[in-house]
């Protein structure tokens, strides 16, 4: 029989109620603090250039405008004197498309390979006791250290400024995360369940796909979201390994810094728009997330 809300504290109901309110208030406060930048971003995205650097800062724009959003997609379109300040020539659609191609593929690749490798390491001790550590070494150096040698390879392989090039880099560098995270979830699956499947007659691949995978679904979802965010927001390598054809959204954002100053408006607007895919992904897999994060903690 499941019991809900077992009171862990020992105090009379009145104090309980007061604490309940206080608890909610504190949570609201903390969440609020984290939300401030996002809200601010939203606010600036609707402000005309004249209001970008107004002091004291205002939350609600006095004359809200959609120009910032429009200029992202149709740079020639803005009207009015303020519009003259916005002199970006390229629409963001290209960078968006690039991101939408490179990031999901790289994420899928990373998580898939990571999961399979994690299973090998967790269940069959492939690579010995050192393997997990080895994999982690890829993250131990500042990313910039790899940039030069990789650039040399890439030029030779003619992968600079290509989607494939970026995919490989993103998949490679997030592999460590994928492996480590999924390994934890796989180890949370009691061995006996897999052994029962073996005795039932399942081959090792069968066990992996019909037993282990469904159980760690949540963990995989959590890992996917995490790796997706890492890739989506990655700037350094995108900057170095792309020039014109395959720039991604973060690089595009950097184009809004001009000699005259920053174009906060379009930057904010692009930031808002760029967040949308991540939010959608997060929403879609959120129910898996809960099971994913809690499953690993369940023992016996």
């Amino acid at each position, binding site marked *: 029989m499941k019991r809900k809300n077992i009171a862990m504290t020992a105090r009379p109901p009145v104090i309980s109620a007061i604490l309940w309110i206080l608890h909610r208030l504190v949570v609201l406060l903390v969440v609020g603090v984290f939300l401030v930048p996002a809200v601010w971003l939203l606010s600036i995205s609707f402000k005309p250039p004249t209001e970008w650097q107004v002091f004291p800062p205002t939350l609600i724009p006095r004359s809200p405008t959609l120009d910032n959003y429009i200029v992202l997609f149709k740079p020639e379109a803005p009207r009015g004197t303020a519009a003259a300040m916005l002199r970006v020539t390229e629409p963001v659609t290209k960078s968006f498309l690039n991101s939408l191609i490179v990031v999901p593929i790289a994420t899928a690749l990373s998580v898939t390979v990571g999961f399979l490798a994690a299973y090998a390491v967790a269940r069959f001790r492939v690579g010995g006791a050192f393997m997990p550590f080895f994999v982690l070494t890829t993250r131990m150096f500042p990313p910039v250290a790899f940039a030069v040698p990789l650039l040399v390879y890439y030029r030779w392989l003619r992968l600079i400024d290509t989607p494939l090039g970026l995919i490989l880099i993103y998949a490679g560098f997030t592999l460590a995360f994928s492996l480590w995270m999924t390994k934890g979830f796989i180890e949370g699956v009691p061995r006996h369940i897999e*052994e029962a499947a073996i005795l039932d007659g399942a*081959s090792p691949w069968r066990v992996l796909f019909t037993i282990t995978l469904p159980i760690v679904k949540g963990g995989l979802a959590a890992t996917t979201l995490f790796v997706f965010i890492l890739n989506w927001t990655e700037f350094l390598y995108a900057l170095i390994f792309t020039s014109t054809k395959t720039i991604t959204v973060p690089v595009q954002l950097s184009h809004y810094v001009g000699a005259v100053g920053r174009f906060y408006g379009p930057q904010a607007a692009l930031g808002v728009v760029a967040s949308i895919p991540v939010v959608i992904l997060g929403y879609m897999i959120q129910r898996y997330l809960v099971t994913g994060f809690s499953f690993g903690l369940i023992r016996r």
Partner: protein
Amino acid sequence: MASVEVKNISKIFKDKPVLKNVSFYVSSGELFCLLGPPGAGKTTLFRIISGLEKADTGGVFFDGKPVTSVPPQQRDVAMIFEDVALYPHLTGFDNIAYPLKLRRLPRAEIKKRVNEIACLLRIEHLLNRRPHTFSGGERRRVAIARALVRNPRVLLLDQPFTDLDAQIRHEMSAELKRLQINVGQTMLLATHDFEEGMIADRMAVINDGEIHQIAPPKEIYNSPITRFTASFVGSPAMNLFSCQLVRTATGCELRHPAFVLSLPWHPVTFPQQVWLGIRPEKIVLEKGGKIKARVEVIQILGAEQIVDLVLANGDRFKWVAPLSLSEKFRRGDELEFDFPISAIFLFDYETGHNLVRKEV
């Protein structure tokens, strides 16, 4: 249903011998119990029989044919693990159907067989639910259903009832026996609770990787070969007193700090120190008896009493007294007992072996 033979199985794990030259034979359709304390090697042995682990030496044979090189998937062995190991993401029905799906049986056939076995084990109401909603006993039954639905050659149960309520454990033991009778399944049961194992046709007592005795349960209870077996099987455990053994003209004498007993027979060999063993229910309250002890604790168990007594030298022992004697004594009383000669066991102090007697 296959017969199982285990021959000279040894296994060392991290420099510690876990199994030492274990051998036994289980006939087809037999319910065989492997009885021993935790750490005795029961689980390791089962894993070797099922193929999940390899032995260092020796072999396993099903129906006379070696299976050592057969991978676990193909041995057609089913095992119920101590923690049951149901597939948590599948319903009861899918859990039971899993092995059949692997064998690519037609859907209609699968449905029929699953329903049949669910009916036999009275778990039809669980078919549409997930394992986390089942009670302990229900999970066991679903696991057994999943194991039996494919008619395995051998069924291994590794301590299947340990964390169930005492009442349910008793019922499930009976159910297991009923299954064996109805289905004729070869079953091997590993447990540390001798009561669970008493329903077996034959029992092997194992300790520290070694087999002490293989015999039908009643024989193990009435004629234990080693001291370990004698004290492990029986509740309350057999009383053991450390005594000196002295040869006499009429047989032998057992010298204990608190009493001296004469026996009209003597063992074939004469170790100096022996264990005198007598089961608590065989002790007789007798005025003028040679064994004098003080009552320490009385525990009433429905139709009988378990009395803890202490001898003059501090040794303790237990006595099972019928309830008809309940008003006759109290905590702190000094009572006198007799140990009937027919109920006395002698075990070598060093080796633990039951000493064979030789009439004088």
